[in-house]
């Protein structure tokens, strides 16, 4: 036990804010900051989802008037999406969903809200820096709004922003780059804060192997961010210099585009891809590790039995994070980099499937012999596992470089990462929202609406993303405004229309969630103190917790998975309960 944990209730003590703006707006309270991240990412999810539907509209009914927005956005073109704007659409859809929705939702919202509560701290280690990490998102938001509003002149190089395209074209690419620099700095501040807080401010008795999996997931994510983000930020600045200052980091010697000599030196387009994926592959794990942590906690609670293989799961996450830094080349199998180097990236990619597989088997073992109660968060949790299996298995198909020759940059890839990012990360986020809603707002979400929302989302999500595997097997390329220009893809139009109908259904299903969220905020039932019978420290305080979180410093006596001790014993034993109970599951 470190000195810090021995000192008792940790966290920088700052006075309870007295003015409304210091309480709700520029608050240093981690709970307010977490809710701010939650609200802004949910709003951005609506925008990113609308962009996705616009993409789907174009793929199902190309060059027809886009409903609702078409008339005022493209009045000159009869409401049609233009090819330029189509590129802006998928660029901004990916950027928004990754940087403004999934990462802020899982890492920003739940990281901020849960870390101090789960480790028994008063607040984060650096509350002011924490506030800064949220408010630095806003210049990023503003930049992306400008980039999106540029319409035809928007960033058109995809979220991967491969040069030379990104260096030469798309006037609003500058806004995109500057926006991401802000987001990156925000995440770096957040990650330093998370690491320090978890290392220093754990309550007495909260040893490393008593940390809930959620905290483990967030800690490892923070380490990933701290190491990977500086590389992306540097690369973004280099691309900005290429655009503004006439450098040639990513522009090869002698490149002449539209009669203009672009190059001032001898750069290398592949350098960007290496730098970008050196961040963006770990970013994949940044988006899934917190979800894995949350799901492990929720699964154990919903199964009313101890989590299977806790230590192995922690080690798996560490292995995923470590190996995550040496697999980035699998995004570049046909990029023109050395094809001998490909072999090592193939090997590391095959290996990184192992810890993910081990985690899945441990979740299944947790379900075995369980006593399951299907709350809506439990449905989303198990939904996560099933979608993660499909997303993981399609990942193995593309991990073999020869198979990747065929499916690289096709809809097979789109299917794969939507299974992992939507099917897994977003379902885990929904599970977490349902689970911690009573903690955050002191009210329960409606179970019936939650279950309808789950079933519809689950069906439509598979209807939307599974057929994309078929498209990919046919070689249907990504990022095509009108794939039916190619004769051999014309017979895929009906399938694309089916996908679009499912996507529209999925969008509509989210309205149920919006109604449930807002309605429960106002009229939800008041929960008991610990409505789900969970063991973690966050349930040791009021719903919602007061400023400073805990009335007195909690002491931790055991790991957080003490469920079903014996047939006659208590159903669960919270971490802060001093009662001594002999148990087979005692860790």
């Amino acid at each position, binding site marked *: 036990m470190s000195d810090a944990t021995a000192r008792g209730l940790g966290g920088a003590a700052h006075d309870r804010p007295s003015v409304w703006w210091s309480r709700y707006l520029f608050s240093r309270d981690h709970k307010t900051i977490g809710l701010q991240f939650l609200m802004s990412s949910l709003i951005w999810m609506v925008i990113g989802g609308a962009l996705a539907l616009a993409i789907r509209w174009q793929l199902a009914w190309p060059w027809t008037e886009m409903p609702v927005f078409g008339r005022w956005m493209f009045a000159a073109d009869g409401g049609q999406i233009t090819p330029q704007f189509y590129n802006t659409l998928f660029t901004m859809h990916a950027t928004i969903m990754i940087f403004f929705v999934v990462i802020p939702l899982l890492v920003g919202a739940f990281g901020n809200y849960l870390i101090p509560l789960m480790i028994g701290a008063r607040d984060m280690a650096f509350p002011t820096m924490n506030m800064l990490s949220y408010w630095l998102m806003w210049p990023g938001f503003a930049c992306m709004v400008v980039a999106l509003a540029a319409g035809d002149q928007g960033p058109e190089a995809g979220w991967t922003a*491969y040069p030379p395209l990104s260096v030469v074209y798309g006037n609003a690419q500058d806004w995109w780059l500057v926006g991401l620099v802000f987001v990156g700095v925000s995440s770096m501040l957040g990650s330093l804060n998370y690491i320090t807080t978890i290392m220093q401010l754990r309550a007495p008795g909260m040893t490393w192997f008593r940390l809930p999996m959620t905290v483990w997931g967030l800690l490892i994510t923070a380490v990933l961010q701290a190491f990977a983000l500086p590389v992306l930020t540097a690369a973004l600045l280099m691309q900005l210099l290429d655009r503004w200052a006439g450098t040639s980091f990513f522009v090869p*010697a002698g490149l002449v585009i539209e009669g203009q000599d672009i190059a001032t030196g001898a750069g290398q387009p592949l350098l960007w891809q290496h730098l970008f994926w050196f961040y963006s592959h770990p970013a994949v794990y940044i988006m899934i590790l917190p979800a894995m942590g949350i799901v492990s906690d929720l699964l154990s609670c919903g199964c009313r039995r101890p989590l299977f293989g806790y230590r192995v799961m922690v080690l798996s996450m560490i292995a995923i994070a470590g190996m995550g830094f040496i697999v980035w080349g699998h995004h570049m199998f046909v*990029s023109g980099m050395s094809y001998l180097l490909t072999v090592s990236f193939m090997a590391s990619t095959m290996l990184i499937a192992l810890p993910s597989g081990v985690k*899945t*088997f441990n979740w299944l073992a947790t*379900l075995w012999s369980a006593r*399951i*109660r299907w*709350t809506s968060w439990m449905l989303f949790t198990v939904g996560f596992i099933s979608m993660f299996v499909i997303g993981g298995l399609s990942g193995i198909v593309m991990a073999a470089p020869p198979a990747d020759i*065929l499916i690289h940059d096709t809809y097979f890839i789109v299917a794969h990462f939507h299974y992992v990012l939507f099917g897994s990360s977003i379902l885990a986020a929904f599970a977490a929202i349902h689970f911690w809603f009573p903690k955050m707002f002191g009210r329960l979400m409606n179970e019936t609406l939650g279950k309808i929302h789950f079933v519809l989302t689950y069906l439509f999500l598979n209807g939307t993303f599974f057929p994309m595997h078929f498209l990919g097997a046919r070689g249907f390329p990504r990022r095509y405004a009108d794939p039916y220009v190619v004769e051999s893809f014309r017979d895929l139009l009906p399938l694309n229309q089916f996908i679009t109908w499912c996507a529209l259904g999925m969008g509509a299903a989210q309205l149920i969630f919006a109604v449930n969220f807002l309605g429960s905020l106002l009229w939800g039932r008041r929960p008991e103190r610990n409505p789900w019978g969970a063991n973690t420290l966050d349930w040791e305080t009021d719903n919602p917790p007061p400023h400073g979180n805990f009335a007195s410093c909690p002491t931790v006596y055991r790991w957080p998975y003490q469920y079903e001790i014996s047939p006659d014993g208590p159903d669960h034993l919270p971490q802060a309960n001093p009662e001594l109970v002999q148990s087979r599951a005692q860790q």
Partner: protein
Amino acid sequence: MSWRYPTRNNPGEAMQRLWSLVFLVVPIACSAIYLLAALGVPPLQKFWLPPNYNAGGDSIDRLFVLTHLVAAVVLVLTMGALFWFSWQGSARAQATSTTAHHTMLEIVWTIVPACVLIALAVYQFPSWNENKLLRPQILDKGRAIAQPPLVKVVAKRFGWEFYHAGPDGLLETRDDVFVENLLVLPVGEDVVLQLESRDVLHSFFVPGLRVKQDVVPGLPQFLWFRVEKPVELEMVCAELCGWGHYTMQGRVRFVPRAEYEAGILVQRALPRSGHLAHINPPVTHVALRERRRWPQPTRGVSGNE
């Protein structure tokens, strides 16, 4: 009555079990459709790999099918377990075991998948060698050397230029033959292409040949394949190159060697900027210089009638 988390004294009702069916039906239905597509059952046969004409592509197809088979077995086992455990768990009044660790199990389910993955990794080596590492060789004065490219492919926004080696068999000489957007190649022999870009990244992708190679400005790439029978295939660009990315297509036509050489001769007699008149109908590509122009939908195909 306030909603409460069901306690142990409230054993699950039978209805609770139905929830576990959701996790069985959906993934199994998806995989079943996939399987029928792979087996070529109409009308699903078009949801699987297109016909392959490249000898080297066979190993890619075999690998694709094999990994899918492995994935299918894992999917059925894990989803089956997920369903069965939740089916049983939904109606329990008490967890039947609180075992939280089993070293032997952890070892087994690490080692077994590791073996499968290593086997897959080893299995795909020959295919990668054949398609990307080992360029075909020819004998030059009794010495095996890498086969020189037959055609230089130059990708540009938004089209393809093809420079055929003339009678001297060498590229970048005065007798090169230039054709745009139609790549005519001989059948029955290894063909090597040299890929270059005029501007941004592109990717040379012919689904029917199982070849894909990004074209990087300043970094020439090589690509090879072998087609045994005359066929005409579509090629597309698979790396985002700007607003007209989707319009950047061409055709690859494989003809007997004699016809190929005749075409080269005819083309050489024409002005240098001309097209292979007798085998190259005018390619219908759009006016690419104008930024706000794109192909209008063909009626009944991509339009909304």
